[in-house]
């Protein structure tokens, strides 16, 4: 990130006044000073992330017993996830829905990022702020807005009916997988635009000129120079959307209905109405493992493709 500041990194400490033993040690060691500054954040995140995850893993080997847990180690939960079709179906559907949403978002956002990177010359910052601003506002309320738009008596249906184009409301708009996909793609757009923009902005313009001079037309120039060079942006955009949306709860809960329910809803149910916490923990772990392995495969695939092209 700031590699240019590194080479002369140990100069400033020399001017300091006579320090105590610990301070002297800190002054001597770059890494130690850095680590001591970083430690509050790392310590907090370490405790707040790793410890709960550890407990979650442990709990996934337990079973519920009345209001308490039977803490004898068992793989029953994992066996149940493998055997009962409902879990597999929901997991598959979640991956499928967020996979489509990811592809749609990246494809739709690419031209936008391309436009700002290559064709906006003044007020670039303004465009970026405009594109990312909605992302900072409440996710819940943005999903709620889509419910208003897609609802049975919502914006689209009532507008079409007022205009006399349809007789009865279109029922497939709300409570469907399509509704979930549209909303996810819309809500996570900023996550795709930023990495895409950064990777496009970094491309050396003289490479494009070189391609033109060597006789490439606009299409070939894009396919052979711009697209391969922006591939890191495409990869990180895809991962940044795919990973969090797979476990999304709000969108399927508000817009999915029974057909659009995803694994997040089932996990919540295990901790709520069903009250089988160990199973909820197991599902969370399985979800994480699935996402991690799919992402690893995806990255390997991209690396493989890049090697073949280059």
């Amino acid at each position: 990130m700031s590699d240019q500041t590194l080479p002369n990194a140990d100069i400033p400490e020399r001017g300091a006044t006579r320090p105590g033993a610990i301070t002297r040690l800190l002054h001597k060691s770059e890494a130690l000073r850095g680590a001591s500054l970083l430690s509050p954040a790392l310590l907090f995140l370490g405790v707040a992330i790793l410890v709960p995850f550890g407990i979650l893993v442990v709990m996934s080997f337990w079973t519920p017993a009345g209001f308490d847990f039977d803490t004898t180690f068992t793989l029953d939960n994992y066996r149940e996830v493998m055997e009962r079709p409902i879990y597999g179906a929901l997991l598959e559907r979640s991956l499928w829905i967020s996979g489509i949403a990811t592809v749609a978002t990246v494809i739709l956002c690419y031209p936008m990022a391309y436009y700002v990177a290559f064709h906006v010359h003044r007020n670039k910052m303004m465009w970026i702020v405009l594109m990312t601003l909605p992302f900072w506002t409440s996710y819940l309320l943005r999903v709620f807005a889509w419910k208003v738009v897609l609802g049975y008596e919502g914006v689209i249906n009532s507008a079409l009916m007022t205009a006399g184009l349809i007789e009865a409301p279109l029922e497939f708009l709300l409570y469907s997988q399509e509704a979930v996909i549209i909303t996810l793609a819309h809500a996570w757009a900023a996550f795709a635009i930023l990495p895409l923009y950064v990777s496009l902005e970094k491309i050396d313009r003289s490479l494009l000129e070189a391609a033109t001079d060597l006789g490439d037309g606009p299409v070939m120039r894009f396919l052979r120079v711009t697209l391969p060079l922006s591939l890191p942006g495409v990869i990180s955009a895809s991962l940044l959307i795919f990973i969090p949306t797979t476990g999304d709860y709000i969108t399927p809960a508000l817009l999915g209905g029974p057909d659009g329910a995803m694994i997040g809803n089932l996990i919540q149910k295990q901790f709520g109405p069903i009250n089988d916490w160990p199973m909820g923990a197991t599902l969370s772990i399985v979800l994480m493992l699935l996402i991690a392995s799919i992402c690893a495969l995806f990255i390997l695939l991209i690396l493989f493709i890049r090697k073949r092209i280059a």
Partner: protein
Amino acid sequence: MSSDSYIKRKNRPLQVYAVIFLIVLYVPVLFLPLFSFNDSLYVRFPLKGFTWQWYGELFEREPVWSALMNSIKIGAAVSVLSTAMGVFAAKAITRYRIPGRGPLVGFIMLPLVVPLIIFGVALLVLLSQLGVPLSLYTVALGHMIICLPFAVATLIPRFEGFDKSIEEASADLGENAWWTFWRVTLPMVLPGVIASLMLTFTVSFDEFILAFFLSGTQPTLPMYIWGQLRFPQEFPSILALASMIIAMSFIVVFIGMWINRGASFGAVKGDET
């Protein structure tokens, strides 16, 4: 045709696409304020007439006010704490050669990517095993996890953007590390700090999932809205409340980004300030 003209040439279809993209990005959200002024219990066209009724109703509701206060308390505490940690972390990341820096930064940014429901569930399990009762404190704890990466991400470009030699000069002139930080570093990164405070406050204020799992009897504002969504007759008031929250978020985030504009997004070219 010179190659220069290709790069500078306007691309009309792309421009049209970009404008449509922005419209589609904003229009769904804009329906909330539109219908919040509609004089009808039903959210549908045709619009009936203009009214402030739904806004007026909100002001008389006790639960809205208490939920608002809960959200503000959590947001204020979380934004200050996460920004404070973020300043040190961002300084460490940009200034010092730390072994394994890449993975460490990745770890800090992890909460931005991992589904929040996982964090919610994991923290819930831990807290219940420890016997800690759910309260506003536990919600704040959860919000810290997602606000810290936002704070660090906002502050890193600020630290990268300023000239390290100024800090060195301060040290050469005899200031110790602490005073150098107070009198040189902090004023230099202040726009980033203010932006981080505003952005993390908004993130915490608007967050739902973690609050959903980690709150006890006192709801935050998003939790209150979630609870009201079940009742169709509450829809217009919720639209009014949602419109106000979104308007406030837009303003706060916009100001925050604008204050920090010189540093954001890896120093945007052609827009020097």
